[in-house]
């Protein structure tokens, strides 16, 4: 796959679809006209884009869990169990499908049938095919999103939209850098240009489909400016292909001031860059992911972390919050634990619905800092691409302009090293080649030095390791033992 300059022409796009649909037998059942008719027949109450728009207008925070198991019947039971306590439903896809290993996914389905329990960590939608996926959608009454981590998610997108799913998480950067090892960025971005073009095609036919670039990336000490840059680039790439309903995401970092400031900056930066690029007809919403790093094993402690995420979402006026569970430290949760995470979040979100945090001087300083940092990366990326966002993104990773901490991809520079400051906000210990101006670097250095002085040790990789495990061990800042 090669990168496209601008919107993919319709005839070229239709030819590309032929190839994508041949990668697994269930692709043969996709008929675009039938898919559009089916989507038009679904009630508005099941449309993800409509629900996000209404919530954004009403300043509501919607709740969404993660969930997916190997077999259709069990998956339906799981979602029906969660449905009363959430506003938006997920269908989380298994790891084999994410790598297009449909043969392995099939083996997982067979082994799960034999074992009487799911041996896959998600729902293999491609293997199940359109008719079975429609059975899932038709069993529910709330909008359902496909959540995954797939660098080449073309076939999955075709089947998902034909089956009535109305939101699709991911992007050419955010579903490559944290999820793959050897997939070239050019390839994943081109695949996602195709997916965004497919969403754009549905929009042209009057069917709304929501798109959500994956905000948290590696989920490990990612500073707001790094994830915001990726969110803005993927937002621009999506709008370029005709996407209208776009939800930009951010993973909770843990310091409340920084988290609220990050969400404010994200929304303002999105409007700034989208409008600068000439887009007016888009529906912007935001999502906050509750803490994506390691969790305490103790469930009471885990609920505390979940509550803190619910608090960050409510106070930062996120349009939706992705909810964790008290089993997070152990892996895939039981459905009961999943429901408990939702209830816990609902309680705090409701309690905070009528409260507002004042925009203090410190908060506005943080908003301004994040904006200046993000603009430095965005402007360097746009310059590298000579105005072409896709090219710019590829070159920005090559040049080290964008660098995501602790990401597995070989396309990621991996030189930038984050660490918490003395109040737990994420700062940068080593900038690598990220083009942050010197005056801002000094701010980071000084803030980290304050922590080092307080802890009477040098800021080092040990401090970073301490920060990675700190929340699972009971606090935000990884103090020396």
């Amino acid at each position, binding site marked *: 796959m090669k990168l496209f300059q601008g919107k993919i022409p319709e005839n070229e796009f239709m030819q590309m679809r032929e190839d994508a649909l041949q990668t697994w037998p269930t692709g043969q059942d996709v008929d675009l006209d039938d898919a559009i008719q089916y989507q038009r027949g679904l009630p508005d109450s099941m449309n993800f884009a409509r629900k996000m728009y209404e919530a954004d207008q009403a300043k509501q925070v919607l709740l969404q869990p993660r969930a997916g198991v190997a077999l259709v019947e069990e998956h339906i039971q799981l979602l029906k169990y969660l449905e009363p306590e959430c506003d938006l439903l997920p269908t989380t896809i298994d790891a084999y499908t994410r790598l297009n290993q449909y043969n392995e996914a099939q083996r997982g389905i067979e082994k799960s049938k034999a074992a009487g329990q799911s041996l896959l*960590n998600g729902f293999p939608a491609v293997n199940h095919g359109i008719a079975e996926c429609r059975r899932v959608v038709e069993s529910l009454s709330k909008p359902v999103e496909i959540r995954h*981590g797939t660098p080449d998610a073309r076939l999955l997108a075709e089947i998902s939209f034909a089956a009535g799913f109305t939101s699709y998480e991911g992007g050419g950067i955010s579903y490559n850098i944290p*999820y793959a090892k050897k997939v070239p960025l050019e390839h994943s971005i081109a695949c996602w240009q195709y997916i965004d073009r497919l969403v754009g095609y549905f929009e042209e036919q009057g069917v709304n489909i929501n798109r959500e670039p994956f905000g948290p990336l590696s989920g*490990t000490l990612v500073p707001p400016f790094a994830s915001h840059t990726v969110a803005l680039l993927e937002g621009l790439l999506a709008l370029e292909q005709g996407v209208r309903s776009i939800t930009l995401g951010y993973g909770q970092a843990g310091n409340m001031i920084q988290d609220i400031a990050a969400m404010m900056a994200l929304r303002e930066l999105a409007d700034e860059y989208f409008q600068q690029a000439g887009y007016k007809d888009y529906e912007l919403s935001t999502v906050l992911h509750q803490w994506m790093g390691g969790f305490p*094993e103790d469930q009471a402690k885990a609920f505390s972390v979940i509550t803190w995420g619910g608090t960050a979402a409510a106070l930062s006026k996120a349009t939706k919050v992705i909810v964790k569970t008290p089993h997070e430290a*152990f892996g895939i949760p039981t459905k009961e634990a999943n429901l408990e995470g939702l209830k816990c979040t609902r309680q705090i979100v409701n309690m905070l619905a009528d409260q507002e945090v004042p925009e203090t001087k410190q908060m506005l300083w943080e908003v301004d800092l994040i904006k200046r940092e993000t603009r430095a990366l965005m402007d360097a990326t746009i310059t590298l691409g000579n105005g072409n966002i896709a090219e710019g993104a590829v070159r920005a990773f090559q040049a080290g302009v964008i660098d995501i901490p602790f990401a*597995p991809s070989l396309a990621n520079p991996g030189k930038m090293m984050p660490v918490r400051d003395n109040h737990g906000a994420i700062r940068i210990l080593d900038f690598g080649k990220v083009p942050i101006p010197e005056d801002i670097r000094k701010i980071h250095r000084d803030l980290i030095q304050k922590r080092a002085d307080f802890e009477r040790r040098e800021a080092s990789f040990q401090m970073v390791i301490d920060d990675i495990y700190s929340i699972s061990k009971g606090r935000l800042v990884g103090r020396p033992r």
Partner: protein
Amino acid sequence: MVLGVIGADCHAVGNKILERVFSDAGFNVVNLGVMVSQDEYIDAAIETGAEAIIVSSLYGHGEIDCQGFRERCVERGIEDIILYVGGNLVVGKAPHEEIITKFKAMGYDRVFTPDTPLEECVNYLKKDIESHRAENGKNHQY
């Protein structure tokens, strides 16, 4: 020692930390990163003459990915290699003892759940390599 995250798993954070911790403890770490197949571990172990393979899995497919690893080592002629596995090894929450029994039956010498302090893994590996060398009449430094 050869280190890596098995199967289709792309959890990279713990892998980067393990590399650092084992290196700092004096081990010669060959880190294959994420998404490593059984044969890739074995290839690397044969190529480098490694004394241990440390397998991580965090995403829940560990049970499928880790099956048959010891048999594969036997087939490839490194039947005596020390084999460790650790992480979130099964889908869902299961008692630690149950998980440890299951993976030991697959031929793993030690099985670690996520609550294990890293120093403990380091100490076990030092001990296991020493006794392994004593059995094989070797006595060199790692």
